[in-house]
């Protein structure tokens, strides 16, 4: 074992650092999905589409800024602006226009409404951005690379993947924890999550909280997409792939858990990167295997709370 570890330091190190960047992105999407589920009790299948639209918007804005001759750092403005635009416009439109009509419905129908939304948004992406790959990696190139030593080998990593992605994810986690626990709006959201009826009886406007939470969750998905856009080439279908992955993270963590989502994102992110280097055929399977393994032992997820059964 020790010998194997020594021989594979390079591989393991690569997997760890790649996995960290990957986990950061997955966390951004999963935490939004989880927050929305906690408050609205709806798993939003179209959440992955918001990620994709955020990514495309960021790429388009970045290319537009570059064409206008703006300095390269404007690329970062494009990322944030894209997330704010997508979350701020699509979030309220979807919540107030569609989801609000189905809060009392069966869970099956709620799932299907967001599935229908997913189908519509997938085609909307193809109509707006076409099916040709889109890529805008200015923010990635601007920061250059860092040489990371692994024993005798030195591997260049982009500073963007090494520092920006994990940094933003950590800041999101800390900001969210502070927001939910220390601010009035945050505590109102927690109150509605814990007991909607009691919260409403205390005079909390649940409609406002739902709107706010969904918009915020949509913004997080879009920000995840925007941050991912410089690291990859955008093609149709990234939304569909993202939603299943972020659900795996959420289920592994336990529904409604914020810090748990960070830990399971790390677990799944690093597990997947390890598979990329060690057993590439199983790269896509690993997140689900981790999830199934966790749920076999703890059906409510790593940090989930067991719900009392109705009699």
């Amino acid at each position, binding site marked *: 074992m020790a010998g194997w570890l020594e021989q594979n330091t390079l591989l393991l190190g690569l997997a760890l650092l790649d996995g960290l960047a990957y986990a950061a992105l997955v966390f951004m999407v999963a935490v939004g999905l989880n927050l929305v589920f906690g408050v609205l009790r709806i798993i939003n299948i179209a959440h992955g589409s918001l990620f994709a639209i955020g990514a495309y918007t960021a790429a388009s804005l970045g290319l537009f800024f570059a064409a206008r001759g703006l300095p390269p750092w404007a690329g970062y403005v494009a990322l944030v602006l894209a997330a704010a635009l997508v979350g701020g416009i699509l979030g309220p439109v979807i919540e107030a226009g569609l989801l609000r009509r189905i809060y009392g419905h069966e869970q099956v129908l709620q*799932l299907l409404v967001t599935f229908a939304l997913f*189908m519509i948004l997938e085609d909307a992406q193809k109509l707006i951005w076409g099916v040709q790959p889109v890529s805008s990696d200015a923010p990635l190139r601007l920061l250059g690379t860092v040489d990371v030593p692994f024993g005798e080998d030195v591997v260049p990593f982009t500073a963007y993947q090494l520092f920006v992605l994990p940094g933003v994810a950590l800041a999101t986690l800390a900001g969210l924890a502070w927001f939910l626990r220390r601010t009035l709006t945050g505590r109102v959201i927690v109150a509605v999550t814990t007991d909607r009826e009691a919260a409403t009886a205390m005079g909390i406007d649940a409609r406002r909280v739902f709107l706010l939470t969904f918009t915020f969750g949509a913004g997080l998905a879009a920000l995840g997409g925007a941050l991912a856009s410089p690291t990859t080439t955008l093609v149709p279908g990234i939304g569909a792939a993202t939603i*299943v992955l972020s659900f795996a993270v959420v289920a592994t963590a336990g529904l409604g858990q914020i810090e748990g989502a960070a830990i399971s994102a790390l677990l799944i992110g690093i597990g997947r990167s390890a598979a990329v280097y060690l057993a590439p055929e199983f790269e896509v399977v690993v997140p689900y295997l981790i999830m199934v393994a966790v749920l076999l032992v703890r059906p409510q997820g790593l940090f989930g709370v067991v719900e009392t059964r109705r009699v």
Partner: protein
Amino acid sequence: MRRGTEATLALLAAAGLLAAAWAAPWLKFVLTIALAKGIAVLGILLLLRAGQVSFGHALFLASGAYAVAFLAPAAPEALLLLPAAALLAGLLGLVVGLFVVRYRDIFFGMLNLAISMVLYSLLEKLYELTRGTDGIRVEPPRVAGFALTLETYVWAMLVLALVLAVGFGAFVRAYLGSPMGQALAGIKTRETRLEFMGVSARRVLLAAYVLSAVMGGVAGAIVGMTTRHVTPLLAYWTSSGELVFIAILGGAGGALGPFLGAAAYELVRVYAAASFADAWQAILGTVLLLVILFAPGGLWGVISGLLGRRAGRAA
């Protein structure tokens, strides 16, 4: 609805379907696929009765289709391939079912999704075995020992699918009326009370799950033999979503709903794809939203509502 009325409607629908296929030959392919998907959706219907929605049943459809693709060279006989695919899907359903029946609601739906994605990735990545995204071509097998011309083969597939659809439809109708079916409805309303009566909710759900897997396998076998080309896309989670879509579109009330839904779905899809190549998904999505918001009983709910009103007036 009375049993006689439903049987009459089913017979009328079957006759209408054959007439349509005879009048417009290109419809045969679309209708065979619609019947196959209807059979898979019957299985979804069983689970919906328990209030559970599987977002991963394409797993069983795909395994049935791939079973045909793998076995066809060795046993080129449709009447052997069908039961083999059903058996394989049923066994897979038993293994997966033992795991997923411990979960409810969102977890049930999404665990199914995750497991179907495992199969999807394996089908895609194990190129040596499955030829990856290229998929596998299926040579038309013999039917009851006869090697058919392409024209008769297409007819044979349609008739085979129709017979199986009627058979499974009648079976599901009887099953839902049986104590096992009643217990399924009990899982939806109050599971704990079911267990107070000494009925194991997990076993009730597992039985329904295995049956639904078998129906998925049969559907997959028909799809494989009809399209004569199987790809991993059959197992992708959006294909599972499509099956749930059809269930809601048709209406989860009766055994005719899935076939009504499947026919409507496939026809809208063919027309939408021909007229608006890049927007057919969006069109289907809009249809689904309209059905959920304005006709929650689905097409079958609309039709039986109309029939019921007429019967009420006649009485």
